[in-house]
C-alpha cells in the first residue's frame, strides 16, 4: 500500500465519520460508496491499532539547521582529528582525552559524549534512565543535504513528495479514525490536542488529509500562554476584554443577541466557500481560543507553575547544576530565552492539560545548528544549554507543576533535518552531512520504552584532508532512517505496524516501510 493512498483513505473515512449527516452527504457527493468501502477496508486491513491504556504526550523538539552529532558521539574523534582539514586539538586541546574528574580535563565521557558540549548532563540523564541516545539516524534511501527538503522528510516521516502530511497531522487522522469515541467530535476531544510553539510547521501540514476537522488542527500558543487571540478593540460593539468583555445587545430577526456574536456568525456564514476554508477555520478557532483563554479554566502563566524543588529536592533556580565535576552544566531551571520559555510552556501544558497529545517547538533562542563557520565554542555552549533545559524538563515532568501531578508518559524527542560532516572546514565549521543523533527523553511509564541506552556505533568515511569527511553506521550497527522517528511516535499511540504509515513505493521500492526505533517487539532496523 502506497503511503499516500493510505493517507487519502484516512481522509475519506474521517470525513464520513465526523461530519454532521447533511454536510457529510454534501462532502461525500463526489465519493462513491465503493471508494468509501475500499477506504475502510484499507484502513482496517492496514493499520493494526490498539489504543494504550493512557495516551501519551509527545514533545517534538526540532533542531533546525542540521545539528552536528559530535556532542553525543566523540567515539571516532581520534581518527576525525587526524583526518580533518583543520585539527580539533587546535581549538579544544583536550578533546582527544578521556574525561578526568580529578583533574577536570579531557572531553570524552564514559559513553563517548563531549563533556563541554552537554556531555556531563547527557551522562547524568542516561545513568538516571531518563534518556537514550540513538547515534545512527542515517539517510540511506534519500540522502539529501538541502535544508528544506530534509526538514520536509524528517517532519512528515515520508519521502520528499509534494503535499505530504506532517507527523502531527497523520497522528491526528489515525486517532480520529481509530478512536472515534474520543476524537471524532469536538465535544469529546480534549481542548488543544495538537499544539505548536513554533508557529506554522511542516509537522502539521495537512497534505492529503485536508479534511482534518477544526478541533484536531494545530493551535499556536506563545510561551507565556498569553491570549493573543483576543480582539484588542471592541469599542464599536462592546466594552472590555477577556473575561470582562461586555457586548452590546442587538435585535436580529426579533431576537436579542450579542451584536458582536451576530457579526461573527454572519461573517462565518458568508465565508463558506472552500477558498476561504483555511482563513475561516482560523477565524473560528480564534474565537474558541479567546473564550478558552479568557475564562478561569484556561491556561495561566507557566512560569508560575514551576514548583520550588523537584521530586528529588533539587531546587528549580538559576544556580548552576552542581556535581562532583567542575564542568558547566547550566542552571537548574529553564533558561531565560525563547527556547527555555517554550520548553517550559510545553512541559507545563503537558502536565496541566494532559489531553494535549503532540507539541512542537524549535530550539530557536539557543541559536541555529547550521554551523558552517567558527563553530566549536558556540556549539559547546548551545548543546550545554540544550541539555540543561532538557534535564530541567525531565525533572519537571517527574515532579509535576504546582497544580498538576507528575506524568511518566510524556516523551521528548530531539532531532534535526540531518547531521554534519566532521571535517573542520576552512571556516572552522562543519558542512551539511547525514548521520545524526536522536535524543529521546522521558516517558519511562510507556510500555517497552527503552531508556538509559546509547545505541549505534559509527565509523569514519572520507578522504583525509577533504571536506567530505563524515561518520556512518559501523558495520553491524543498527541504523534507522529519519522516517523511523515518525514511526516511533505512531507506535507510542498504539499503531502496532507504523511502517505502513512510512512506506512509499516511490522511493522505498520493495521495502515495506520504516518501523519504530524504540524497543518495541518486532522493530526491524533497516540495514544499509
Amino acid at each position, binding site marked *: 500500500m502506497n503511503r499516500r493512498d493510505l493517507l487519502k483513505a484516512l481522509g475519506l473515512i474521517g470525513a464520513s465519520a465526523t461530519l454532521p449527516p447533511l454536510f457529510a452527504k454534501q462532502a461525500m457527493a463526489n465519493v462513491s460508496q465503493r471508494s468509501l468501502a475500499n477506504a475502510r477496508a484499507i484502513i482496517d486491513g492496514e493499520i493494526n491499532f490498539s489504543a494504550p491504556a493512557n495516551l501519551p504526550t509527545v514533545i517534538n523538539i526540532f533542531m533546525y539547521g542540521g545539528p552536528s552529532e559530535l556532542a553525543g558521539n566523540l567515539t571516532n574523534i581520534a581518527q576525525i582529528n587526524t583526518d580533518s582539514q583543520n585539527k580539533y586539538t587546535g581549538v579544544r586541546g583536550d578533546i582527544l582525552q578521556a574525561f578526568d574528574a580529578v583533574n577536570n580535563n579531557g572531553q570524552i565521557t564514559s559513553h563517548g559524549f563531549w563533556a563541554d558540549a552537554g556531555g556531563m548532563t547527557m551522562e547524568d540523564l542516561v545513568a538516571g534512565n531518563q534518556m537514550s541516545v540513538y547515534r545512527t539516524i542515517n539517510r540511506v534511501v534519500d540522502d539529501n543535504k538541502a535544508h528544506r527538503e530534509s526538514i520536509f522528510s524528517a517532519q512528515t516521516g515520508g519521502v520528499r513528495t*509534494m503535499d505530504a502530511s506532517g507527523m502531527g497531522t497523520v497522528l491526528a487522522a489515525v486517532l480520529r479514525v481509530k478512536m472515534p469515541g474520543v476524537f471524532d467530535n469536538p465535544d469529546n476531544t480534549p481542548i488543544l490536542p495538537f499544539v505548536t510553539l513554533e508557529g506554522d510547521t511542516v509537522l502539521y501540514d495537512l497534505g492529503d488529509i485536508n479534511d482534518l476537522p477544526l478541533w484536531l488542527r494545530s493551535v499556536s500558543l506563545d510561551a507565556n500562554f498569553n491570549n*493573543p487571540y483576543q480582539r*484588542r478593540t471592541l469599542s*464599536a*460593539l462592546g466594552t472590555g476584554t477577556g473575561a470582562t468583555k461586555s457586548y452590546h445587545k442587538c435585535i436580529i430577526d426579533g431576537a436579542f443577541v450579542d*451584536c458582536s456574536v451576530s457579526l461573527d456568525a454572519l461573517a462565518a456564514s458568508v465565508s463558506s466557500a472552500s477558498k476561504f476554508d483555511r482563513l475561516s477555520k482560523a477565524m473560528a478557532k480564534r474565537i474558541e481560543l479567546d473564550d478558552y483563554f479568557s475564562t478561569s479554566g484556561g491556561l495561566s502563566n507557566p512560569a508560575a507553575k514551576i514548583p520550588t524543588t523537584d521530586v528529588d529536592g533539587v531546587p528549580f533556580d538559576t544556580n548552576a547544576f552542581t556535581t562532583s565535576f567542575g564542568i558547566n552544566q547550566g542552571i537548574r531551571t529553564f533558561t531565560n530565552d525563547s527556547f527555555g520559555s517554550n520548553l517550559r510552556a510545553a512541559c507545563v501544558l503537558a502536565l496541566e492539560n494532559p489531553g494535549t497529545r503532540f507539541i512542537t517547538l524549535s530550539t530557536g533562542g539557543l541559536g541555529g545548528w547550521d554551523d*558552517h*563557520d567558527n563553530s566549536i565554542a558556540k556549539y559547546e555552549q548551545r548543546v550545554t544549554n540544550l541539555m540543561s533545559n532538557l534535564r530541567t524538563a525531565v525533572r519537571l515532568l517527574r515532579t509535576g507543576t504546582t497544580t498538576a501531578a507528575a506524568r511518566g508518559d510524556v516523551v521528548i524527542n530531539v532531532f534535526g533535518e540531518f547531521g554534519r560532516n566532521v571535517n573542520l572546514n576552512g571556516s572552522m565549521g562543519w*558542512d551539511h552531512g547525514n548521520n545524526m543523533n536522536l535524543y529521546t527523553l522521558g516517558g519511562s511509564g510507556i510500555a517497552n520504552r527503552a531508556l538509559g541506552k546509547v545505541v549505534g556505533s559509527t565509523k569514519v568515511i572520507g578522504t583525509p584532508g577533504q571536506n567530505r569527511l563524515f561518520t556512518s553506521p559501523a558495520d553491524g550497527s543498527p541504523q534507522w532512517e529519519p522516517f523511523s522517528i515518525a514511526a516511533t511516535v505512531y507506535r507510542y499511540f498504539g499503531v502496532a505496524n507504523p511502517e505502513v504509515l512510512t512506506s512509499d513505493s516511490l522511493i522505498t521500492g520493495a521495502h515495506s516501510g520504516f518501523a519504530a526505533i524504540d524497543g518495541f517487539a518486532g522493530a526491524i532496523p533497516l540495514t544499509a
Partner: protein
Amino acid sequence: MWGHPMMKTLKPIAAILLGLSLASCNLGSPESTGKYDYDGTAAQLDSKEYSRLTPLQQYQVANKLSSALFKGVPARSFFKEGTITANAGTLEVSAEGQDYVGKVRRALKTPLDNRDAIALKIEGDADAQIPARYTFDTDRKPMQYPMAYMFEMPLSDEYFARWMAYKLVNTIMFSPAEEIDSASERDVQKIYEGLVSALMDNTPVRSIILTHELSQANWRRFRSPEDNTREMIEIYLGLFDRDADVPKAAIACKNWSLTSEDQQYELQQSPKVNTVPQLILDHYYVTTCEDFFNVVANHPLVIPRVTTVLIDHMFGVDYPAEKRTALARDIAAAQPTTFKEIFMAILFSKEFLLSMDRPKWFEESFFNAANRMYWRPYSAFFRDLNRTTGSGNIGGASLTLMYQPAFSLKLGRWPIVPGDVLATAYQHNGLRSAMLTRSNAKLASDPNFDPEAIPSNGWGPELIENASTMSLPDFISYMFISALGRLPTAEELSTLTQVINTARTAATASTVDCTVSSAPGGCLKYWSSTNVVNRTLVVMDYLSRLPESYFYNAVN
C-alpha cells in the same frame, strides 16, 4: 523560524525548459514596443480587454493590482460621484478610474520628481526646524525605513524598483537573513539598496545574481565554500539533487572564507587558489570561485528558476501547480533579461489580475486598505510594524508575530501566507485595531486639520465625506465597495441594518441585562442610526471579521 520546506516549489524546471524549446518565442521587450506580446498563460490584460469588464470588475482589478504593489484605489475616486449605490448597475467609472491598469503600467515607468521632498518629509531637517514625520529604531532603521519610504512615494519608476527589491529580499534568492548571527542590519541595507540601484538601471538578472554571489552579504548568509556553493546551485538553478557537485564547487571556492565573530565576519580570500579544474553540473569546468559563480549566473536554468520563484511568491504555492508551471514557461519563452520584465509580465498577466486567488501578505492587505480608507500612519507605525515584538497600536501585532518578518528569514519567506490560528489572529488584530475600528473622522471638524501634518491612526474623514445623505442600504453598499470591491449580500445588508438600528447598551451599570425591556436603570439605544461615524464603525467592524478582507479573490 526556518518555516516550511520548499518542496511545493519544486516544479519541473525540466518541463519549463522543454516548453521553452517548443513555445513560439516572442523576442524583444514588451516594454520597448508598448505591446504585450506574451502568449498563452502569460497573456497580458490590455486596456481594451480591461475596459470590457463591468465597472465593479474594473475596480476589483484595479485594487488587486494596487494591493500587490502595496497601494490602493479609493472607491470615491474610481467611480463618478453619486453612482455608488446598492445597485451595481448605477456604477460609472470616473475619468480617474478609466484605463486604470494602463495608467499604472505607465506610472511604473515614470521618473520620480520629488525624491528629496519625500526624504525630507520622512526624516525632517533639524537645521531647517522641519520635524521628522516618522521615528525608527536606531539599529533596525534599515529594516523599517523602506516601507515608510514606499508609503510616502507615488507610483513611479523608483517606486517600482523599491517594491521589486522588497519582494526580492523576502524570497530565498536575496534574503539578507538578518535573523542569523553573522548578518546584520547593515547587510539588509546593502542588499536592499544595491538591488534598488541595479533595478533602477535595468541591470540584467544574471549580473545582479553574480554581484550578489560575490558579495560579503551573501557569504554572511552562506558561510563556507560547501554551504555557499550548495545554496547557489539550489537557489538560482533550482537543482536540489546535485550533492555530488558540491564538493567540487567547494574546491573552486576553497580560498574563500568568513572570519570569526570577533573579526566581524569579514569575507576573505587567501592566496591558496585552486588550480585544478573541476567538472560541475555535467558540462562546466571551474577552477576558481569566480568561475563557479559565473557558471551559476549564466546557466540556462537561471531565468526559468527566477521566474518560478517569483511566480510562487506572487501566486502562492497553493495555486494550481500546472498553472504556475505554464505561466513560468510562457514568461520565460519571451526571454526576459531583467527582473522588471519578469515582474511586469506577472503583475499584468490575465492569470494574475483575473484568476489568481490566495490569502494576502499583510503588506498587501494593510496598505491597500490604508489607501482606500484614507488612513494616516502614526509616527512610529513603520517602526512598530517591523519590530520583533508586538505593538499595542497595531493590535499587539508585528510582521514578526504574523510569521512574515521582512528581511529576516535565512531562506526568505516561504511562498505561502502563514495561515495558522495565531498568525491569522495577529493579522486580524493588526488590520482591525490599526485601521478599521478606529476613526479619525474627528479630524474633519478640527479647524487646524492638516492631513499631511497630523500623524494619526484609523480611517480618515474623507471616507465618509459624502456619506451623510446616503440611505442606509446605499451607505452599507458604499462601504462594502470601498473596502472589498463588492456589494453586500442580502443577508449582510439585513443583519448590518438591524445592528445599526437596534444596538443598545446599559444606561448605568454594565451588568444590566439589555435583553429585558424593563431592565433596572434602563438601556440606551447605542447608535444614532444617522450618525455616519457610528455606522461606519459597525460596518468596518464586520468587514474586519471577514476572511475576504485578507484574501485576493479571482475577478472572473
